[in-house]
């Protein structure tokens, strides 16, 4: 039996005040287990990115509790939140967000500035199949390659949770599949919790759990006993 990794308890997130106040997330409750692959699915404006940002510690709830690895992160100070992001979370962005002035290796090795015992950058690049391009700058790589570097960077911190906000959104179908496969495999192999946000319902088929969101609320949570292998997905 896997242990609980993330728990949302009556989480609300509102922006603005008075008449202009609106809720991006309204009374959200769910649990995610260690090593699970979870997809948060919903249309644009459903609140899925806000949920992901709150898990990632780059946004915080207006009300409610978020428990990660047994600790309530809701009341973390900024420095605690920095450490939380550094040690617990690995982000994979839709547009890769690599530092354009650094080579692939340096982008991965950058984590040395962030965590005390990072994984070896070369090993990570080897794992994502880019060891031969380690000296290339982002401008010298394709979108898929850049996203693989981004994954290597996220993994190099050796976090317990990997978050991906539309990680295949900017990629073509084939490359998207490869990237997804890579994330999936690495997380399975290292028992990392993988949470993906997407509006592409097909991606949900490969998840252990799918959280459907609509109008800032959870519509339903579906546990998938037999996830479809990534290579069989129609992206």
């Amino acid at each position, binding site marked *: 039996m896997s242990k609980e990794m993330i728990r949302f308890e009556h989480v609300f997130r509102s922006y603005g005040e008075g008449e202009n106040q609106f809720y991006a997330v309204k009374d959200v409750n769910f649990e995610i287990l260690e090593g699970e692959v979870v997809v948060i699915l919903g249309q644009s404006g459903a609140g899925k990115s806000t949920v992901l940002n709150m898990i990632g510690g*780059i946004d915080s709830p207006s009300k409610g509790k978020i428990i990660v690895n047994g600790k309530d992160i809701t009341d973390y100070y900024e420095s605690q939140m920095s450490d939380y992001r550094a040690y617990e979370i690995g982000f994979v*962005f839709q547009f890769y*967000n690599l530092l354009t002035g650094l080579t692939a290796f340096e982008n991965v090795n950058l984590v040395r500035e962030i965590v005390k015992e990072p994984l070896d950058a070369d090993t990570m690049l080897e794992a994502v199949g880019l060891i031969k391009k380690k000296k290339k700058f982002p401008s010298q790589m394709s979108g898929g390659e850049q996203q693989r570097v981004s994954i290597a960077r996220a993994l190099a911190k050796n976090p317990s949770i990997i978050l991906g906000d539309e990680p295949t959104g900017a990629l073509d179908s084939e490359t998207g599949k490869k990237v997804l496969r890579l994330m999936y495999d690495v997380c399975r192999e290292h028992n990392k919790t993988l949470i993906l946000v997407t509006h592409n319902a097909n991606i949900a088929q490969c998840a252990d759990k799918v959280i459907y969101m609509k109008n800032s609320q959870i519509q339903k949570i579906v546990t998938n006993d037999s996830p479809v292998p990534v290579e069989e997905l129609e992206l």
Partner: protein
Amino acid sequence: MMLLKKLLRDSKKNLFPILSIIVLSFNAVACFTGITSSNLGTVSDRKKYHEDTVLADYWIYGGFTAEQLDELRESPLVDKAQLRTEIDTDTENGNRIFLYVEYENEVSKPYITEGEEFAPESDNGIWLNSRYAEENDIAVGDEFTLKYESISITQKIRGLIMSPEYEYYKAENDTEPDFSNIGFAYMPLKAFPVEEYIRIKSSALNDGQDISSQMKMDQLVLTSDESDINEIRKLAGEKLSGSFVSVLSRSEVQGIKMLDDEIHQHEMFAYIFPAIFVVIALMIMITTMSRIINESRMQIGAMKALGIKREKIIRQYLAFSFLLSAIGCAAGLIGGPTLIGSLMGKFMALTYTMPEWSCGYSPSFFIVSAGLVAVCVFSAYMSCRKIINTPTRDILYPRAPKKVKKCIFERLPFWEKLKFSLQYNLRDMSRNKVRNLTVLVGIIGSMLLTASALGCLDTLDNMKRWNFDELQKFEYQLNFNSDVKLSDKESIRDELNGELVMNAGIELKKDSDSKTYNASITVTEGKGLYNVTDEDTKVYELKDGEIALTSVIAEKAGLKKGDSFLWKEYGKDEWISSTVGSISRSIGVQGISMLRSTYESAGGEFKPDMCVTDENAEERSYSAVKSVSSKADLEKSWDNGLQMYYVVIIVFIIMTITILFIVIYNSAVLSFNERQKEFATLKVCGIKKSILRKIMTAQNMWMTALGCLIGMPFGRIVLNYMFTSGGDSQDFAVKIYLRSYILSFICVTLFSYLINLFFARTLRKLNMPECMKANE
């Protein structure tokens, strides 16, 4: 119009860079037009003033008669000429008034500010200079008394006047003008007690002749189109043989020369200081405009996709850049002359005297403004064209990662061992050269201004040390009356254990065919109270037979140690040949120095005009002594004269703060805007805020340190230029102490750091969720 409106609305996002363009273009234009307009106004007002008063071109000194004047008037070289006598008088409370007595007034007419026109043929009245009258609450109609030796002259003031010969004047003991204790006046000959004056002058009177006509006038002033003073000297030698002592041109009359030098100095300032602002303004404009437009990349793409014509899009951005720079330049065109120009006029009026201080305009104002606007618009055009020429499809997509290659620093053998923040910044620096160059130029400008401002204080301090610890090492100075015998002066000297000093005017030339220069001779008794200093401004003892020549005159006349030269005192015919024994330096008295024994062996008659001593002379009373000044009085007067320099220092500091703030803050804004997404990504990845702050401030701080080091020698150059462009009547010992360099470095660095720190607060506002979205 709609697009321009959109641009103006969007400008909120780039408020500081936009304000920088406006403020810097204002500063550059205002600084240039302000100083230049003041100069143009002064030159034009002065020209009118000189024309209205028929200011003389040449002053011939000696003792002349009406017949000699008539003979001189016949020369085709002479346009207008007249005689007058200058009498050094005192008021009842001991203030010095130069009284001009004349029977006609063709040349160098007084300018009437109040009261009647000057009437030289009248038998009563005195016309007093207005500034003395204002300072001493004297009005037209008041009785005014002057004393000359045993003569006391009391006349009613019929008018208040100014004279271009007195554009600058000050009392002997003042460092800067204090108009309450010195002045000048005009008086008709018939109102003057000629008989008593002639008797005092020991001239014999002819009983049968009109007394007025028997008075020899000591000045002949004339106007002439001849520009070569040697031609006038030759003419005076022919027509006034035996009576003529010396000739001075306008450029040699101290009261006129000082303002000439000041105008020249301002002309230099009108280029050097605005140039700093113009260069920085141009660089900021180029970097900022291109950044603002690049940030609108996707919007330009959207406009293109909507079918808006490319010319229309470009036009809107050009209008936007034109608007920004034009607002700044227009404000500078108005504010420069009205604020800086009129303020400078007011400051000039504190020291110089003219009826009017207005501001002038020149086409160059509009050329400089148009140039600035053109550069701003051109840089906007270039950036806009680059984007607009990109296919619409590519503009609308998130920008591909910036193409980069290895930077020069990466070739360093220890590159791999450098810290991440260091590597990151070195790379960013090498990829944003223009932005960093702008910061560098700004820091160099700030450093040179700060070092110049502190150096200005150092120079004044050094000059004070030089004057009071080296040149004039005495506690009291006693100024003798003009009719005192040498033996009386010597007995005062003996009683006070002092030293007698003589200062007189001489003419000096390299050889008989060379140009003649007016200079001074200083004769001392070598007792170490009134000294000569070497080229390092250190005291050295003159030897018997040695003649020291000040470096200012040596340079002008092309003389060096060991060279022979000719000199003669005013009023003497015989030229004396001497050898330059040493090159000395003096603050205000330029010429030759020698010991009394040397002077007397050359046949000179020692006529000391002061006695200097360490003994308290204020408690004693001597009839031979006109006035006594203590060292404290002299130092106080010296300090009072420094007000103008403090204004310069404050202006420099304001300029420094403005430049530093705009350059550093603007650079921080541009660099932050460019790297915002990267910073947010790093923050999302868990990098500490302190490291981000270090990354953000490091580049500006490196540029600050580098700029400070480069700016240091420029500070010295500007300071040197500032002091030497003021003419050669004074020798300034320009100095910047090491502590001032260090202090300037600390001040600029600290201020730069504070601005960076202030800006680093922006990190708090860094929107992390934003970085999850698309690139733009």
